């Protein structure tokens, strides 16, 4: 039962989509966590948190789909990546524990609210950093022998992964700040605009640095990006990134919802760039999506499930966002 290549490719796209959905949706949640200390304790912080309280749980579910989908569709990749990035995954999970309970706990006890604010920020920061470093570890390559991870358990820690980690934190901060521009008004919004501008520059510089570093990382990557005809397929991505970046910079001063959507666009470009870089590997340099794929019967069974449920999921998720549309607590101030 050799898996059908088309089916495996479809699954690679589904998982990439789940990861992308996670990155942008929980990305702005985590970004708000990272930026949280810059908001004044009290009403400003409460509003920032309230802007995501009804949706963070749904956002985080995409992480479970990304991980669970990888387990189901590419079990070998899952079985290699998790041990290879073991400390990062554990750190991310524990970070998400603190971040997740902070939503509930910080309201329960006045005296300890400051502590849960710190837990919210710390958890978000650790989770974001760890996610970025997992990405870096994947890109720099994972040593595989037979069907097992063959490296040591600090392989993931390199200057490159630190760079991708910080880059992810900056990117999430940009998403969080632009989300807050959309959801807040008055002073909070003005503050978010200031933060967004800084996060934008940090993201732009780090994104560029990671891209350039990638070229030197592996010869396959350089060939993909610097030789024709591959270059012609790949070129629209950096061009679109540059256009969106400039547009975003202009929109930051006045836009309401626009900066957030442009930030999403930037992330989509980043994701496309990464996909182009590693395709058709799922674990560079040695495991392709075809080698790691689950048997056809498993992939078909799940594809039916995705086909039936995904439209519904997107519909009621969209509805949940629609229910909580508008500025946070605007009417609460009258």
């Amino acid at each position: 039962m050799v898996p059908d290549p088309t089916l495996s490719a479809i699954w690679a796209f589904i998982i990439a989509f789940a990861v992308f959905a996670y990155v942008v949706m929980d990305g702005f949640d985590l970004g708000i966590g990272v930026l949280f200390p810059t908001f004044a304790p009290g009403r400003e912080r409460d509003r920032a948190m309230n802007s995501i309280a009804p949706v963070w749980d749904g956002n985080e579910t995409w992480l479970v789909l990304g991980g669970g989908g990888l387990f189901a569709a590419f079990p070998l990749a899952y079985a290699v990546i998790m041990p290879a990035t073991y400390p990062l995954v554990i750190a991310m999970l524990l970070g998400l524990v603190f971040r997740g309970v902070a939503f509930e706990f910080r309201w329960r006890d006045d005296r300890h609210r400051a502590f849960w604010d710190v837990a919210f920020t710390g958890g978000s920061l650790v989770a974001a950093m760890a996610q970025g470093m997992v990405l870096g570890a994947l890109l720099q390559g994972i040593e595989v022998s037979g069907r097992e991870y063959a490296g040591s358990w600090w392989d993931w820690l390199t200057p490159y992964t630190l760079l991708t980690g910080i880059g992810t934190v900056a990117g999430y901060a940009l998403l969080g700040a632009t989300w807050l521009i959309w959801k807040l008004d008055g002073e909070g919004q003005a503050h978010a605009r200031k933060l967004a501008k800084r996060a934008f520059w940090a993201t732009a510089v780090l994104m560029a640095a990671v891209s350039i570093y990638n070229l030197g990382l592996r010869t396959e990557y350089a060939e993909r990006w610097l030789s024709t005809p591959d270059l012609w397929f790949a070129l629209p991505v950096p061009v679109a990134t540059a256009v969106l970046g400039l547009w975003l910079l202009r929109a930051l001063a006045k836009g309401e919802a626009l900066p957030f959507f442009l930030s999403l666009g930037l992330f989509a470009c980043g994701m496309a760039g990464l996909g182009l870089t590693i395709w058709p590997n799922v674990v560079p340099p040695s495991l392709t999506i075809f080698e790691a794929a689950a048997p056809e019967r498993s992939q078909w069974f799940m594809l039916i499930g995705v086909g039936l449920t995904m439209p519904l999921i997107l519909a009621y998720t969209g509805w949940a966002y629609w229910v909580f549309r508008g500025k946070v607590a605007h009417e609460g101030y009258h």
Partner: protein
Amino acid sequence: MFDNADALILARIQFAFTVSFHFIFPAFSIGLASFLAVLEGLWLKTGKTRYLDLYRYWLKIFAVAFAMGVVSGIVMSYQFGTNWAVFSDKTGPVLGPLMAYEVLTAFFLEAGFLGVMLFGMERVGKRLHFFATCMVAFGTFVSAFWILSANSWMHTPAGYILGANGQFLPGESWFDIVFNPSFPYRLVHTVIAAYLTTAFAVGGIGAWHLLKGRANEHVRTMFSMAMWMAALVVPVQIVAGDMQGLNTLEHQPAKVMAMEGHFESHPDGAPLILFGIPDSKAGRVDYAIEIPKASSLILKHDPDAPLAGLDTVPEDERPPVGIVFWSFRIMVGLGFAMLGIGMWSLFARWRGRLYDWPWLHRAALVMGPSGFVAVLAGWITTEVGRQPWVVYGQLRTADAASPLDAPAVGASLLAFVLVYFAVFGVGVWYILRLAAKSPHPGEGGVAEDMDAPIRTAGITPGPTQNPGDPDKLPRNREEAE
């Protein structure tokens, strides 16, 4: 200094620890979500605000419990890969889709409607809000369906073929995999256990308020509802448990031998060992108190039926007897204690003393946490009883672990223990603090509390923003009017 055996045992402890901690929260929230749906439904049907007050009271507790269930559940979904990579590689083609279905059909449903359930009453109206509550409750059930299917498959694997790399591959029909032989029994037994866990927690908190003399109409209603559950559902659970036991005897006889402490075979009727100290090395139960032939009677419905013992099982395929023997007795003992409370409550109701019989309330208070303990004991019985297999009869636990060094697993275990005890300890404390106040008319909750910082998208206001001393509030409807 360390070898693979150390890494393995640490990984097993880590899994047992994280899954036990996690399991407490879904066991609570499955029942609580349904309880909330019933309360809101009763409110819509009868128009009595008492039900809405109770809804809001329990919603605050649900929010905390649910958040803890979510974050500890995410850990579980990644733990298969981190500590059990070989297991993931080999079982992924069969178990992966079941878990993916859990995410697609349950987690998204719960998460998507949870926000509306917690914060959306003012924004979507009563009926749509009730729909959201029902979707969350339904989601918790669907989640139980898939995860128990996956878990049951590991106990009674079916519908698979073995592939070249030792991978389990799906066979002809997914139906055989999903509805594997132990699944229906396990699903019924576990879901009822979750309902009873919630019922006894609600009953225990109700009993506490009755004893404290804060017996308002609200407390009475919730205590009465909990006691109805205890009286009607515990007997059903005992039957369901017996059926699962028979199913286990059919498919995993060694587990039942360990549960019963049968080291030796009994050709003409096995005794039921009530208590004793199993000694695996010597292969006997010391100080045993036994009822002759009762074990055969229960398991085979015939006192003289022969029953095989662990002496028929190869030594390296025997589960650890001590843990299984005792956890099973704790579960069954609590089950019968629950039955006692249920019957007592019926008697009290008949005598018209349900709300003023302090000894009943004391007993119900003591039994408040019994569901959690019973659920964990039952879980330990079934999971430890499966050893040394992770996929029964096919894949040994020892052959399923990740290629990790012991220090890595040990360090992460330590981190989990510290964080879980701190974070979830605080969470449980917050729940108890919420429960220490009695529900009262005009219960604040979702987005309507007076001094909550934010109204519309506001999070459930905590008790510190919830003014009013419950002791000074009216105790019943007469006082309120």
